Structure formats: structure tokens, C-alpha cells
């Protein structure tokens, strides 16, 4: 028994190493640039593929060929990091917070198709490492010598980074920038060079993580996304910007995983997220994180939130009129698409209440969309409810979950809060996935079809449109009502908000619940429009969709999410039909949109208009 415990600990430490390498790169990048780099998992995958190609080319049997290939792969991944930083991110550092996340997600999509086109669809099981092909006997078990090597890599890299950070000027600058970005720019440091070099360094670490997997695991096209989720967890559990914290978190998660397998084999699906939720509830800034690392406030990025003026109202009414008249002129399949789009507009608008006025980023908003869908489907399946009743239960279920999850979430802030929402979403997802008797597991619940009157596509479209208009208008009214102002007050200046008697935590909690209810309504409608529900409704990609819609439209605008939903989901759908490499084109479109419209579509429009007006005023005054 003791043998097993010791061996499993070693197994956990070995998996912790690659997790740590990727995580500390992400953490350092975040610390200095405040960018949540979604493409970090893709860089890890790139490192793996590059190492596979280079090692095979240089000769895997020869130590020089193998390790030379690994080092080259690491350098090339670092170079890819430089390209991403210089070509894309550098142009959008001034954009609102998290907008860079949108760009890095575009990079994720592009790299997925680039990898597929370059390396083909087959998994690549790389060669074993020269000198570490075999095993040693440890605790009466065979233990791969390469795993021992990996166990050593973690602390060695940690030590090297420590030396780099304490013994070189560059490292000291990184530490200083992590603590206070303004101070570093005040010191007259070449910030561009610092950011580029940091991005390259972080990318190279991710590449190293990927390259070192070569003798251990098959390199494959899903490595990016399966890694990025776990790495976010590690970074957050460790504490943003803390390299040592990242190591501790990686070890904690690696070892818990190895033991989780012994005790509850099926728990591997959610274990990391359970750990993260537990850690964040007890320690709101992770194990070793400090409160100051979070970007504070939104000063300088905010502009007045004004109700729609005449022109915008006319535009909105014309758009609505077109949606109402659409079934008269467009064919059936366009109606189906429009149905999806209006549902997504509700979903995006619900997240916007949190992200815009609330200043709360949610990485797990799909949970409420999905729970709404499941609420409806479960009502149909287990209670035999008709559609009308099920559509009432959808927001109820989502709202209850939102109230429970939100209660924990609003105690946190910034990226920590966002990651806790993700953890709850993953827990909800795993419940739907694992509780087969109730939810049908990944096969979902089928036969969630609308009532007879709503079966015709046009009828259901009008139902969805009517509900969407009501919900979106209601959210708009809320935003301009005292509650919306109070929520925004809490975002703009929590200090001032508290000092004028506003209970920011409770306001945010209420906003969280309202947003969950609205997302639940969207989810319920979606269930009936598809006739079925699946755990994918609350999986990470769905949450990412919501984020992208809101960010693309413009967080600091009210019409933004609706425009973003139509733009993003419409684009997504059309591209999927047009080309097999739709991910590349979609990713490229996102990157271009981000660079061209750094305030989001609606935000940029408002900004242009405001500039024109002030210019006109200036000429009038002169």
C-alpha cells in the first residue's frame, strides 16, 4: 500500500512538471502584460509538434539529435510568441481589459487549422528520449526513468527562473512590472521590448512543456484546449503572477489527480475544477497571489453610457422591423438561423449585464444557458411539462444556480472571479455529463420539441423573437434604472460606492442572478429550437462564445452584445458552411476585427461619432 502511495506521488509530480512549465509561462505573461493568453495551450501544442518534426528529422536515436530538436522547438515556439506579440497584441494594449483575450482566442482557432494542415490529422507518438528509454525499480514497481527526469525538470526550471528574476536586470524588471506596471513605464524602460521579450519567454516555456511531452504522450490536435483549461486553473490556484505558486499548484493538482484516480476513477473529469473552487473560496487570491496584481478599476477606458439617441433608436427599430418582417421574405433555413441568432443575442445580453455595468468577467456563463436548457428538458422528460411550463422552469433553474454560484463568486474579483465562474460551470457540466440516470450523460436528453402551435419554424421564430425582445429590453431598462447605475457605480469605484451607502457585493450578487435568469431563458428557448440538450451546452466553448459576442460588440455599450451576437455567430455559421478551414478564417477575422475595432463594433462606432461631434463643436466654437 505504501508502495502505491509513493509511486502515485511520483506519478503526480511527473505530470505536474509539464503543467508547471506551461503555467509559469502564462503567469509571467499575465504578470507583466495583464494579458490572459488563451493561445498559451496552442503554443504548448506547437512546441510538441515542432519537437516531433525536428527530432524525427535530426535523428531521435542520437542524443544530440533528440535534445537538439527539443531546444530548437523551444526556440521556434518562442519566435512564434514574438510574432503573435508584434503582429497582434502590440496593437491592442490600449484596448479595454480582456479585449486581448479575444485576439488570443483568434490565434487559438488559427493555430488549430495550421496544425491540422501542417501535421495532418493523425496523432503523433514521438520517439523515446535517448538515455531515458527504460525504467528503474522504485518501491517494487517499474518507474519510467523519463518520468524521473521530468520530476527534476520542474524544480530546476523554477530555480533557474528564480535566478533569472533575482540576478538579472531583465528579471528584476519583470518582477517590478508584475507588481506595478505604471512604475516601470515611469522608469523609462523600453516597455515594448520588455513586453515582446516576456511574451517570447512565456511562449518558449510553453514550447518546452510541449516538447518534453514528446517521449511521454502522443502529440495531437486536442492538446491545446485540454491543456489551456488546466493551466488556467494552475495559474489561478497558485496566484496570478507567482511562479512559485504555479509550481505548488501544479504539484497539488498533479498529485491529487494521481490519487483521485485510485479513490474515485470518474472524478478526473472535474477534479481540477473542484480543487480550484475550494482554493478560491478559502483564498481569494490563490495560494501565493497578492491582491495588488489585479488590474484595478477601468479608469481611462470608460466613457459615458447614454441611452439611445434618435438615430440609434431609429436604427434599432428598423432592425427589429426587419426581423419581424423577415419570415415574409426569407426562406425557411434563414428563419432557423435567425432563431438561433436572437437566442444568442439574449445569451450575450445576459452576460453583458455582468461584464458591462457589473464589471464582472464570467468565463463560465454557459452554465446558466445550459442549466436553463436542462431545466426545460428535465421538465419535459420527468414532469411531462408542456413547452410553456418548461420555459418557465428554465430560468428558475438557471436563476437558482446563479444565486448559489454568484454568492461565492462576488466575493472575488477580476480574473480570480472569472476562473471561479469557470470552475462552477465545469462542475455543472460534469454533473450533466456524469449523472447519466437523470440527464442521459453525454447522449443528452432528446425529444424536447415545442408545443404543437410552435412547431412551425416561423411560429417558433416569433416566439423566440418576442421573448428575446422582452428580455433584452428588460435588461436595457435595468441598466438605465437606479439598479444599473448602482451596479455601474460599484464597478467604476467600489470605494466611492461603499461610501455612498451602496452594498456592492449584494448588487453584484443580484446582477449575477438576473444574468443567470436571462441566460436560462435563452437556454430554454435553445433547447426547444434544437429539440434536445447536451452537456456541450454548458461546456467551455459555449462560454467562450458568449465572451466573444460581448467583447466583439463592445463591452461598454448596451447595444454591443446584440450586434456582437449577430456578427460573431452569423460569421461562425456562414464560415462553417463555406470552408473546411473555417476555424482559420474565423480566427483571422476575429484578429482583424480586434485590431481594426479595438473598442468592439458598437464601441468603435460610438467613439468615432463622439470624435466627429467634438470636432464639429470645436469648429463651431472657432
Amino acid at each position, binding site marked *: 500500500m505504501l508502495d502505491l502511495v509513493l509511486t502515485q506521488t511520483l506519478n503526480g509530480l511527473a505530470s505536474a512538471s509539464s503543467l508547471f512549465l506551461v503555467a509559469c509561462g502564462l503567469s509571467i505573461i499575465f504578470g507583466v502584460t495583464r494579458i490572459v493568453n488563451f493561445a498559451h495551450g496552442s503554443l504548448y501544442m506547437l512546441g510538441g509538434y515542432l519537437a516531433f518534426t525536428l527530432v524525427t528529422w535530426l535523428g531521435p536515436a542520437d542524443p544530440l539529435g533528440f535534445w537538439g530538436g527539443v531546444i530548437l522547438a523551444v526556440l521556434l515556439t518562442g519566435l512564434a510568441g514574438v510574432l503573435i506579440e508584434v503582429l497582434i497584441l502590440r496593437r491592442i494594449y490600449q484596448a479595454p481589459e480582456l479585449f486581448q483575450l479575444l485576439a488570443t482566442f483568434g490565434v487559438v482557432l488559427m493555430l488549430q487549422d495550421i496544425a491540422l494542415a501542417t501535421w495532418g490529422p493523425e496523432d503523433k507518438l514521438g520517439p523515446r528520449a535517448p538515455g531515458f528509454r527504460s525504467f528503474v525499480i522504485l518501491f517494487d514497481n517499474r518507474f519510467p526513468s523519463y518520468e524521473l527526469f521530468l520530476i527534476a525538470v520542474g524544480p530546476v526550471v523554477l530555480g533557474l527562473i528564480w535566478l533569472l528574476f533575482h540576478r538579472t536586470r531583465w528579471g528584476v524588471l519583470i518582477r517590478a512590472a508584475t507588481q506595478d506596471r505604471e512604475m516601470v513605464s515611469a522608469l523609462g524602460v523600453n516597455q515594448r521590448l520588455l513586453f515582446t521579450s516576456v511574451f517570447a519567454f512565456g511562449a518558449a516555456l510553453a514550447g518546452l512543456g510541449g516538447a518534453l511531452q514528446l517521449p511521454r504522450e502522443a502529440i495531437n490536435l486536442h492538446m491545446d484546449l485540454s491543456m489551456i483549461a488546466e493551466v488556467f486553473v494552475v495559474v489561478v490556484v497558485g496566484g496570478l503572477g507567482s511562479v512559485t505558486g504555479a509550481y505548488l499548484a501544479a504539484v497539488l493538482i498533479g498529485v491529487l489527480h494521481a490519487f483521485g484516480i485510485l479513490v474515485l476513477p470518474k472524478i478526473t473529469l472535474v477534479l481540477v475544477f473542484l480543487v480550484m473552487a475550494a482554493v478560491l473560496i478559502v483564498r481569494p487570491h490563490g495560494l501565493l497571489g497578492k491582491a495588488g496584481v489585479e488590474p484595478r478599476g477601468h479608469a481611462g477606458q*470608460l466613457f459615458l453610457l447614454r441611452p439611445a439617441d434618435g438615430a440609434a433608436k431609429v436604427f434599432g427599430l428598423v432592425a427589429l422591423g426587419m426581423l419581424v418582417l423577415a419570415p415574409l421574405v426569407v426562406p425557411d433555413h434563414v428563419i432557423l438561423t435567425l432563431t438561433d441568432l436572437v437566442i444568442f443575442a439574449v445569451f450575450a445580453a445576459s452576460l453583458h449585464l455582468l461584464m458591462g455595468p457589473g464589471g464582472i468577467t464570467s468565463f463560465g456563463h454557459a452554465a446558466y444557458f445550459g442549466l436553463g436548457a436542462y431545466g426545460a428538458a428535465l421538465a419535459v422528460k420527468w414532469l411531462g411539462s408542456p413547452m410553456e411550463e418548461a420555459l418557465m422552469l428554465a430560468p428558475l433553474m438557471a436563476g437558482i444556480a446563479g444565486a448559489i454560484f454568484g454568492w461565492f463568486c462576488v466575493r472575488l474579483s477580476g480574473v480570480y472571479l472569472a476562473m471561479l465562474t469557470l470552475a462552477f460551470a465545469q462542475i455543472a457540466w460534469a454533473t450533466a455529463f456524469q449523472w447519466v440516470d437523470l440527464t442521459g450523460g453525454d447522449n443528452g436528453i432528446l425529444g424536447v420539441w415545442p408545443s404543437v402551435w410552435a412547431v412551425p419554424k416561423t411560429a417558433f421564430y416569433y416566439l423566440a423573437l418576442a421573448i428575446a425582445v422582452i428580455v433584452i429590453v428588460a435588461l436595457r431598462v435595468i441598466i438605465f434604472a437606479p*439598479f444599473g447605475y448602482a451596479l455601474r457605480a460599484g464597478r467604476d469605484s467600489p*470605494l466611492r460606492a*461603499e461610501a455612498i*451607502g451602496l452594498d456592492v457585493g449584494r448588487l453584484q450578487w443580484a446582477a449575477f442572478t438576473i444574468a443567470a435568469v436571462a441566460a436560462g431563458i435563452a437556454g430554454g428557448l435553445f433547447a426547444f429550437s434544437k429539440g434536445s440538450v447536451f452537456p456541450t451546452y454548458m461546456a467551455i466553448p459555449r462560454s467562450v462564445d458568449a465572451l466573444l459576442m460581448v467583447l466583439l460588440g463592445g463591452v461598454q455599450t448596451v447595444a454591443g452584445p446584440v450586434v456582437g451576437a449577430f456578427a460573431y455567430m452569423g460569421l461562425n455559421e456562414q464560415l462553417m458552411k463555406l470552408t473546411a478551414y473555417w476555424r482559420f478564417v474565423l480566427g483571422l477575422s476575429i484578429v482583424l476585427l480586434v485590431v481594426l475595432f479595438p473598442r468592439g463594433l458598437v464601441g468603435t462606432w460610438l467613439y468615432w461619432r463622439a470624435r466627429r461631434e467634438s470636432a464639429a463643436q470645436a469648429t463651431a466654437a472657432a
Partner: protein
Amino acid sequence: MPPVLETRDLAKSFGGVKAVDGVSFSAEAGRLVALIGPNGAGKTTCFNMLNGQLKPDRGEVLLAGKPITGLAPRKVWRLGVGRTFQITATFASMTVRENVQMALISHAGKSWRLFGRADQRRLEPANALLDQVGMTAQAERACGVLAYGDLKRVELAIALANAPKLLLMDEPTAGMAPQERIALMALTARIARQRGIAVLFTEHDMDVVFAHADSVLVLDRGRLIASGTSAEVRNDPQVRAVYLGSGATSGGH
């Protein structure tokens, strides 16, 4: 009648450093009390304990004779304590008027209303407050783009929105031009006397202090070392030594 504000033996340490150590004083309605002292004397810590942002380790804060020690800032505010901050804190995505309206809405207990346009509420009183602080002309501008001095005026208007008994002003004139400073404090003094508000403020500019404070409290290393009228404090040898920097008793630099 008890004084508007009274503190008894307030103390707070951070990691063994006594930031505030046994401070007792009081403030009367309609009078301006200045809290002065060198950097790190504990002024801001003291302020933060008064409005509930920090919990004191020891001691009591009484508002009109009732203890408010350790209450959350928003509860302290509800009891009639307005506050301005050393670094201005306003709502950058709202206009000047909306900032004041927000405070008025909160004071009226309507901040949870889910419908009805917020910018149509409490217009009259908001305009009156803006008028009082001389910000009417800029009412439609976003707070995010205001000059610093104007922000301080907005803060004053916000702080007055709950018809406070007590106004806490942390460095109200920091970052303003000398003439603006005098004007703002004159305005504050006028309002305080009109409405019978007790004002406690910290200040670096001695001209401002001696021109407007009815009484002065001097803090040094967390302890109250002197209090009295401007003239008394100005002539206190201890104050001169530690604060006004004569260097005579501290042995030179």
C-alpha cells in the same frame, strides 16, 4: 448634547507598527477641525477607522453619542457621515450630475429599483448641490474627463448628498492650485456653517489649515500631540519640533 463626532482611545497597528495609537478627540456641529501631521503620522488610517473602512484594534467612535465603531462604510454613511478621498473617487462612466444623483438615489433608499430612468430621478436636489459647489456648467460632462480640482468639487457635492451630520475630507485640496484651495475650503466652511455640519479634514497646506480650521489636531507617529486653535497649535513647541521642522529639539538632520 453630545458632540457630532467623538473618538475615544482609537488604535490600529499594521504588522506591529502602531499607525494610530490611542487617539481621542471630538468635532462639533458647524465647525471645521483640521487633522494634521507629517507623512505617515496616521491621518488616513484614522480617517479610515472613522468611516468604517478599517476596524480599529481598540477604542470607540461615537456619532452623536452613538457608537459606530466597526460598522461597514455604507452603514456609517447611512447614519449621516459624508466622505471625500485623498485620491478622488467618482464614477467615471457617469456625468457629474449622475454622480450626485446616484448618491441622492442611494440616500433615498431607491438604489435597488429595477425600472425608471435613474438620470430622471432627484434632478432638483442634484442641481441644487451642483449649484452650491459651482459645477452647474459642467453637469453634463463625464467625470472621467474632469480636471482634478473640479473632481474635488464633485466629491464634495456627492458627500453632501446624504445631508450629513459629519463630513470627513481626506486632503480635500491636494493637487489644486493655491487659489482654488482657499476657495474650496471657504466654500466648505460656508456650507458647514449654513447646515451645521461638523467637518474633519486632513491637510498639508498650512495656509489652508490656519485660514479655515476652527481647531487643529496634530498627529505624530500615531499619537495626538497637540490640539487647540490655530494660534495655540502654531506656537506649540512640540508641534514645531516634529511637524513644522525647526529641527531644534530633534538634533538636526
